[in-house]
Structures are given as C-alpha cells and as structure tokens.
C-alpha cells in the first residue's frame, strides 16, 4: 500500500518539478516570452484561488461567490506591507498587520473553544462577541506593531536589500492570506448558517462590499497609499514563476493531504448529506467554517501573490463579474477534482488571454468576448460535469486500502444473505 503511494508521489513530484524546471529554463533562455510567462503565473494564481473555491464548493458543498472578495483582501493587505517597505523603508505595515493577525487569530481560537461549550448559542450572538474582540485586539495590534516596527526597521535595513525584500514579501503573502482567513471566519460565522443559494448571494454581496470599500480605500478607510479607485502603484514586482509554483505546490499537497484524511472525509460528508453527517457525530458548522476559512486562506494567498505580479492593483479587478471566474474554472475543470481545477486554471487564461488574442484576425478583436462565452456554453453542454469530472491523477487519487488478509472470525456471524425462512408475524 505504501509502496504504491510512494511511486505515485514520486511520479507526481517528478513530473511537476520537471515542468517547473522546463518552464524556468525556457524563461531564462528567452523562448518563453513574458507574455506567456505572465499567463502561466496568472494560471498558477487562478489555480490557487480556484482550489480554495473547490474546497468550499466542490468538496464541502457551500455555494460561495465570495472567493474574489477574499482574493482582493489578500492582494491589498500584502501589497500594503511590501509597498511600505519598498517605498517608505518602513516595516510598520508588516508589524502592525502581523500583530493584528496574531492577536485576532489567537482570540478567535480561544473564543472558539470557549463559546463552543455554550449550549444553543446562536451564530449572530457569537459573531457579536468575535467582532468586538477582533476590533479591540486590532487596536492593540496597531499599537504594539508600531512600537516593534522601529527596531525591526534597522534589523532589516542591515540585511542585503534583496534578502530583506524577500523576507518582507514572504511574510506579506502569508499575512495577506491570514487576514483573508480571519475576515472569512468573522463573515462566515453568521452567514454559513444560511442555506445554499442564500449563502451564495450573501457572499456575492460580500464581494461587492469589498469592492466598494476598495474604491474608497483612500477616503473612507484612510489608506492613502492604496489610492482608492485610482489604483495602487509602486508595489514591488517580486512574484516570479518560482514563487507562484512553490505556493501552488504547497496548496496542492495541503489540499490533497487534507482530503485524504479523516478531516477531509468529514468535509466531504457535509456536502454529501448534512443531516446524516450530523447524525454521525460530525460538527457540520465547524467543518463548514473550517473549509470556508481554509478556502479563503488560499484566496488571500493567491491575491497576495497576484498583487506582486503586475505591481498594480485596481478595485475594478475585484468587480463582482470577476467573482464568477473561479467558479467558472472550478466547474469547467470538474467539481471535486483537484486535477481538473488546476488544469482549467492554467487553460483558462491561456485560451482567453493567449489563444483568443492570437487567433482572432485583425478587425475582430471585439469578438473575443463573443467567442469566449460561446466556448463556455459549448463546453458546458458537451460536458456538464466539467472537463475532468471526478478524475484525479494517481497521486491525488484516494487509494483504496487492500483488504486485510486476516479475516475476522466474526465475519460470518452477521445474518446477511436473505434466508428464506418462515417467521411468525
């Protein structure tokens, strides 16, 4: 059993790392132009954000359109940190957000344990408690962060510029993802109690609210450097193919491992039948929240990576129309298929931005968005279950354990075969 898994893992990592190396070499040699390289990086980012959605929708069955909102939160959070570092040589953004993340995160975990013991606590009451705690601790986090930033500035300034920026960047990406996760926890707590489509609409509302807030980030929220609807510039362009690939691989492995564990089965059981899951001792609310937070964490991660690709962020990128993109990718690839999601995430920008740009003749540039929905339509009509359905590559496939040789002595004790025998009524 373990031998088989090993061979599959070996094959999987061999092929993927080979793919990475080939692409990297092609980039270095110059065969793969920045045009295609950008599309590949975008593909990897879409893969991460869509895998997050696939966790939420494909595996846990929660119809969420809020993924793009968390993507935006991750992007702007991480961008703000690296912006302050590169343009103001200040780590205040980093430390402040770090402490907010840590304090709020700790508070959420502690409160979750405490409130979980209360019998019959309704979601909105719990939400109020969390919200008050989060606000209070965020204020504390700002104060601590500002103090800690001063020594950290000099420490980082002493390091070579490249290394310092990389450290700030990696931390920024992780903090961006964590902030998205924490916001998703607060938002998800009351909203996850809603049924299917209502949940979808509420999350769509979330995406729109985030977009509106970003439009006014410089006036209402007071983040001057985000420049509201003018778009944020000056973000270092440090997300290379290496980084997106690294994070994508981590996400794939985490998703795969999680799904193949008891926790993954609990998550899937919620999708399959909530009531039965409850009756089997699965804390449905807990696993909905867990999956939603994890999916949003991935969205935030993807957003943070994305922010450093073009070095420019604009609220229009986080328009609600775009929030359908990850959903399209997930369904297109095959609901509940990790392979399909990753594949579709790479194909989608390559077709829409790459192929269609190349093959449409001059004068027909406006037809791109006429052809794309048609392709989507034909695809859905031909393969309504997505390109890959439930297919997974061997590494991602759940391996059925071999039957044990030792046959239970009680085996034949269960009356199983319908015995034809008269019984008195």
């Amino acid at each position, binding site marked *: 059993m373990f031998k088989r898994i090993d061979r599959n893992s070996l094959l999987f990592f061999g092929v993927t790392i080979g793919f990475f190396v080939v692409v990297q070499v092609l980039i270095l040699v110059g065969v793969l132009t920045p045009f295609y390289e950008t599309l590949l990086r975008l593909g990897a980012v879409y893969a991460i954000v869509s895998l997050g959605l696939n966790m939420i929708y494909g595996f846990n069955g929660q119809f969420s359109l809020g993924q793009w909102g968390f993507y935006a939160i991750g992007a702007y959070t991480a961008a703000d940190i690296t912006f302050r570092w590169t343009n103001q040589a200040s780590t205040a953004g980093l430390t402040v957000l770090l402490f907010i993340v840590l304090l709020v995160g700790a508070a959420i975990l502690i409160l979750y344990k405490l409130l979980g013991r209360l*019998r*019959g606590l309704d979601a909105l009451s719990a939400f109020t408690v969390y919200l008050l705690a989060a606000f209070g601790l965020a204020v504390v986090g700002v104060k601590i962060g500002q103090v800690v930033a001063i020594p950290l500035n000099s420490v980082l300034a002493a390091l070579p510029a490249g290394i310092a920026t990389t450290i700030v960047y990696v931390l920024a990406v992780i903090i961006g993802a964590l902030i998205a996760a924490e916001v998703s926890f607060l938002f998800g707590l009351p909203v996850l109690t809603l049924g299917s489509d209502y949940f979808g609409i509420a999350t769509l509302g979330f995406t729109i609210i985030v977009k509106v807030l970003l439009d006014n980030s410089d006036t209402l929220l007071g983040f001057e450097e985000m420049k509201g609807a003018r778009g944020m510039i000056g973000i270092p362009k440090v997300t290379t193919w290496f980084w997106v690939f690294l994070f994508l691989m981590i996400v794939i492995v*985490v998703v795969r*491992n*999680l799904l*193949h*564990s*008891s*926790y*993954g*089965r*609990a998550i*899937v*059981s919620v999708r*399959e*039948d909530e*009531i*039965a*899951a*409850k*009756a*089997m*001792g*699965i*804390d*449905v*609310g807990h696993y909905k929240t*867990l999956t939603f937070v994890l999916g949003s964490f991935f969205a935030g991660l993807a957003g943070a990576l994305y922010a450093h690709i073009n070095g420019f962020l604009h609220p229009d990128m986080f328009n609600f129309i775009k929030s359908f993109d990850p959903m399209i990718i997930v369904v297109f690839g095959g609901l509940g298929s990790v392979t399909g999601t990753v594949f579709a995430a790479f194909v989608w920008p390559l077709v829409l931005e790459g192929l269609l740009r190349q093959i449409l003749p001059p004068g027909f540039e406006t037809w791109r968005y006429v052809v794309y929905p048609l392709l989507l339509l034909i695809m859905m009509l031909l393969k309504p279950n997505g390109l890959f359905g439930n297919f997974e590559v061997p590494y991602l496939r*759940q391996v*059925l*354990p071999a*039957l*044990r040789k030792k*046959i*239970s002595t*009680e*085996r*034949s*004790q*269960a*009356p*199983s*075969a*319908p*015995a*034809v*025998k008269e*019984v*008195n*009524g």
Partner: protein
Amino acid sequence: MSDFTPAPSNNTHEEILHIEELTKLFGGLRAVNNFSLTLHRGDLNGLIGPNGAGKTTVFNMITGVYTPTNGVINFMGQNITGLEPYQINQMGIARTFQNIRLFPKLTVLDNVRIAYHPHAGYGLMDGILHNGRFQQKETELTEKAQDFLAVFNLQDRQGEIASNLPYGEQRRLEIARALAAEPRLLLLDEPAAGMNPAETVSLMELIHFIRERFNLTILLIEHQMRVVMGICEYITVMDFGEVIARGTPAEIQANPRVVEAYLGPGSAALSEKFSRKKAL
C-alpha cells in the same frame, strides 16, 4: 400518564434513556405532547403509531435535530436536551433514517470511516502533514473500519460507491455506519421500509444480532407489524403526538385503543378524531 405502569423490563439494568414530558410545537401544531419514555440497558423497544403520530419527531428531538419546546431528555444520567446532533451522537446515540441517508457518492469504506471521525485520534495539522501519527492512526482506523465491514459482510464492497449498492445492502451499510461510532443507544427509523419479506427476515436477524454483539439498547419505529411484534420486547404506541398505549406485543395487540387507531375506529371515535384534527 399514570395509567401506565413502568416498563416491566426483563432486565433490571441501569437506565439508559429517560424522557420526561417531551413536547414539540410547530407553530400551533402540537406534534408531540407530553411524551415520556424510559429505556434500560439492553432493551429492544418499539415505537409505533399511524402516519403523522409524531414518532419521527420524537427521534429528531432525541438526536438533537429539533429542540424540544418543553421537556427533558436524559441520556445515561446526563441532560442532553438542546445539544447539537453531533454532540448527542458523540455521547453515544446513533440513528438510521426512514429514507436511507448514506453519503451517496462516497465509497462504502469511507461511509464507515466518517463515523469514526470523532475518534480519529489525530489533529488537523497531522492530517495536513500526513506525518507518522497520521499514518499510524489512519491505518488503525482503516483496519478497524474494514473489520467492522466484515462483521456486516460488506468487506468485499468497500470500494463500491454507496449509492450503487442494492437496497438491502444500503440499509445494512447504514446500520453498520451508525454502529461504527460504538453507540450505547441505537434508534432505527423504519428499517424495514421498502424491503421484501426475505430481506425483512434477514433484517430482523440482524437487529437481534447487533444487540447481542454490541451490547446495545435499541428503539425502533416500524410500520410493519410483523417486524415490531416479532422482535420488540416492549412497545409504545403514539397517536396525534400522544402516547396512547404501552405494553408487551401481546398487550398492545389486545389494546382496543391501538386497534382503533390503526384499523378504523367506530363511528363515535371517528367523529372525535375529526374534531381533534380541526382543533389542530
């Protein structure tokens, strides 16, 4: 309530389940009214009554799907009223459903392994990292599940998708899944529904078997009188949300109110019933 003497159970073990004056209102509808019940260890009791009598509502309150409007449910000495269904399950009450509720797209093995989840024995981080602890516990868990399937003669089906199983096997899997969590009390909601006579017989044997094998207390709802009378040691009869009779199968069969409730009452009783219906 005082009409009924306590259950003359053939065993005098500890009390497993004790329900007192349970009431559930849906809007103005009194679905269950002043329902009381006591189960002792090892009991195999039946809950019967015409459609809409409130039997499943009682189950749903015991398992936490509904919160009772009034009344107390004690399970092994602990008050479980108002707990979440998953908490109640983890405390040792398992159930099956009237219309089978498996995890249809998952394998037979996974259906059972999910029931083991609360006792998985490793944390979320172990699950994500697939570390040594995970490997060890997961192997244990899987072997346990396989052994368990073997008990129910389903081990050859472990890779099958649950919804592809024949009906009888689905029922068996559902019971197996419910028992995997090692409950003390099993609630069976019309286990024989939709079964042919042969399957029904086999089911009855299975119920007897699991009670002995797992040292269970069982409460079952059933419409097929053959099953109820065949295996239950003690029966509670409900009609319109209220208990109308209790007793051994023989007593119940002889009880005029039960016969009336089931087999067409006399004209006087009929009119009374209609007036009650209106009032509801």
